[in-house]
């Protein structure tokens, strides 16, 4: 995707480090993401991929470095502020509210577009109900892009859904607020190859409808990475060891050594 190589990246990360006591989980990471780009983030277990997401989204405070989103410095902001600025994510181990309905879970993801005023919520019921109706429609439409049967289960509790539908709900929860950047933390975990394939197809299809959306995907299945990403970044011991198209990266000696061990 040559278009992606634009001058101004939407997200740029400069020298980002995260430390846990003496352990350097992320070491001076440089990372750029352009509008509409789909980047794969790979590396062995413990290489700092999820740490990178957590540092980006404000769950961990970075020890040093700078993160800018559309030219604005967002380093060290709280998770709430990061979400408001247009970065959303999914979690490696699903973090859905399983006792709540699919709709409720999606609405948690749409928080920044919902009226949070106490007066509206408690006393202006009519205005609130109009908002709720609109959101039901939007949720149905979004879910239908992923799976029509799932859209009909909008009011069911998440605990009654199979794994793949839960993953879909989690991805939809991250998409419904129309973010600029979507961070996917190993969405294939706990799913079969076919399910992963279906989810990725849905994702690619929904991307057509959100042209500016940039996605970063953490994934262990290289087939998935090869199929869906424009570019790959490889981490090992908290450092970037390679970057480029999947084929180049897969043939890189350092990457092979990281995955298979040195001779």
């Amino acid at each position, binding site marked *: 995707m040559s278009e992606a190589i634009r001058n101004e990246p939407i997200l740029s990360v400069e020298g980002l480090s995260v430390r846990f006591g003496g352990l350097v989980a992320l070491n001076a990471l440089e990372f750029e993401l352009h509008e509409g780009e789909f980047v794969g983030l790979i590396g062995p277990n413990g290489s700092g991929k999820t740490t990178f997401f957590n540092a980006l989204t404000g*769950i961990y405070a970075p020890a040093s470095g700078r993160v800018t989103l559309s030219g604005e410095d967002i380093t060290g902001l709280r*998770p*709430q502020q990061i979400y408001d600025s247009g970065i959303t994510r999914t979690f490696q181990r699903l973090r859905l*509210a399983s006792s709540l309905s699919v709709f409720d879970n999606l609405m948690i993801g749409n928080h920044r577009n919902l009226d949070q005023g106490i007066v509206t919520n408690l006393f202006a019921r009519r205005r609130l109900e109009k908002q709720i109706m609109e959101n*039901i429609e939007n949720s149905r439409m979004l879910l239908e892009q992923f799976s029509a049967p799932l859209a009909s289960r909008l009011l069911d*509790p998440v605990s009654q859904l199979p794994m793949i539908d839960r993953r879909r709900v989690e991805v939809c929860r991250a998409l419904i607020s129309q973010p600029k950047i979507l961070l996917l933390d190993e969405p294939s975990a706990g799913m079969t190859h076919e399910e992963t394939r279906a989810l990725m197809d849905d994702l690619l299809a929904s991307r057509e409808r959100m042209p500016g959306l940039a996605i970063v995907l953490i994934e262990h299945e290289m087939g998935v990475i090869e199929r869906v990403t424009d570019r790959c970044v490889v981490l090992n011991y908290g450092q970037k060891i390679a970057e480029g198209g999947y084929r180049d990266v897969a043939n890189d000696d350092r990457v092979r050594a990281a995955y298979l061990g040195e001779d």
Partner: protein
Amino acid sequence: MPITNRSYWPVVASAVFAAVFVLLFLYLEEQWEIAVLAVGLVAALYSAVRFGFLGRIEAAASDHPRTTIVVNFVAALAVIVLLRGEHFALLMLATVFLYVTVCLGLTIQFGYTGIVNFAGIAFFGIGAYTTAVLTAHTGVPHLLVIIIAGLVAGLIGSVLILPLLRTRGHYAALVTIAFGILFRTFLEVSDVLGGPQGLKVPGMQILGWSLNDNISLGPLGSVSFYASYAVVALLLAAGAYILVKRLERSWIGLNLDAIRTDETAAASFGIDVPRWKIFAFTVGNCLAGFAGAVYAMMSGFIAPASFNFGDSLLLVSIVLLGGSGNPLGVLPAALLVVVLPEKLQIIQEYRFLLFAVLVILILRFRPEGLLPRKMREYFAAWSRS
């Protein structure tokens, strides 16, 4: 699903049944009658769940939320009217409504937001003591006193906010336990607040009408002054119920649920966790304060011994028994916990033991409580939207 609305008759039937039951429960005095009634209630609840009556009632209530509130309110009023001369029964009924109000506050705190508050009775007590002080030293109208008492309870609760925001789970619970015990100790050593002897509180006056006067109805006999308090307590509980229901059916209720289920995920989607925790904790404590104010005026006398840690435990057990997060479950549970020990003298001494066992059994075999909470329904006939 049919498009036509379901009938509201199951709601009416259940309200009538509940009213008759409450009436008998409060009126009967023979030990064996009460025992039969208690067993009957358990059997009725069980069969309601087993044979799907409960589901039908809940479905009808979901289609007609307003009718449900009105019907149940009228049923409660009818009980008060029928018991008009019975001082003790009405006192108990009023106490139940006040406990319901406090437990609705705990529902916001614990049932929705997941903040365990083991100091419920302390905030109730703050409302009561505020009332005693205000009525003794100022001429503030009593309705305003109740409102101020609630606000003071909310305000004093804010000293707990910082430690509560920094701790989670068991540790947060310990903070509230410490507060509840400190509160009682403080009352006992405070000379200004009457020490262990407590304070007298004048009866409530609304627009020049004193609630402490019995009302004579000529040949129809007289109405106990507790009936007036029961009505005030009922209004308070109904108001709290409407507030809690509206809260649940709004985006705010969703925020609170999101925080309870997963704070990290909630924060990752922009939910301001500290803000909504403070909101829930404060609103809940205000409700306890309102109830405490009415309690003080009704009983005419308050002392530290009325605000024990054990009473806080009873409040929490009401929420757990009724079904955490279901405001409707609070009513039968409060009735059971408040009235049963008064009626069945054999269990009076063992009531803490008994309720402790009951809570353990519930948590083990039916963790969602007697009336489990249902999915959030933002408006009437939600399942067909």
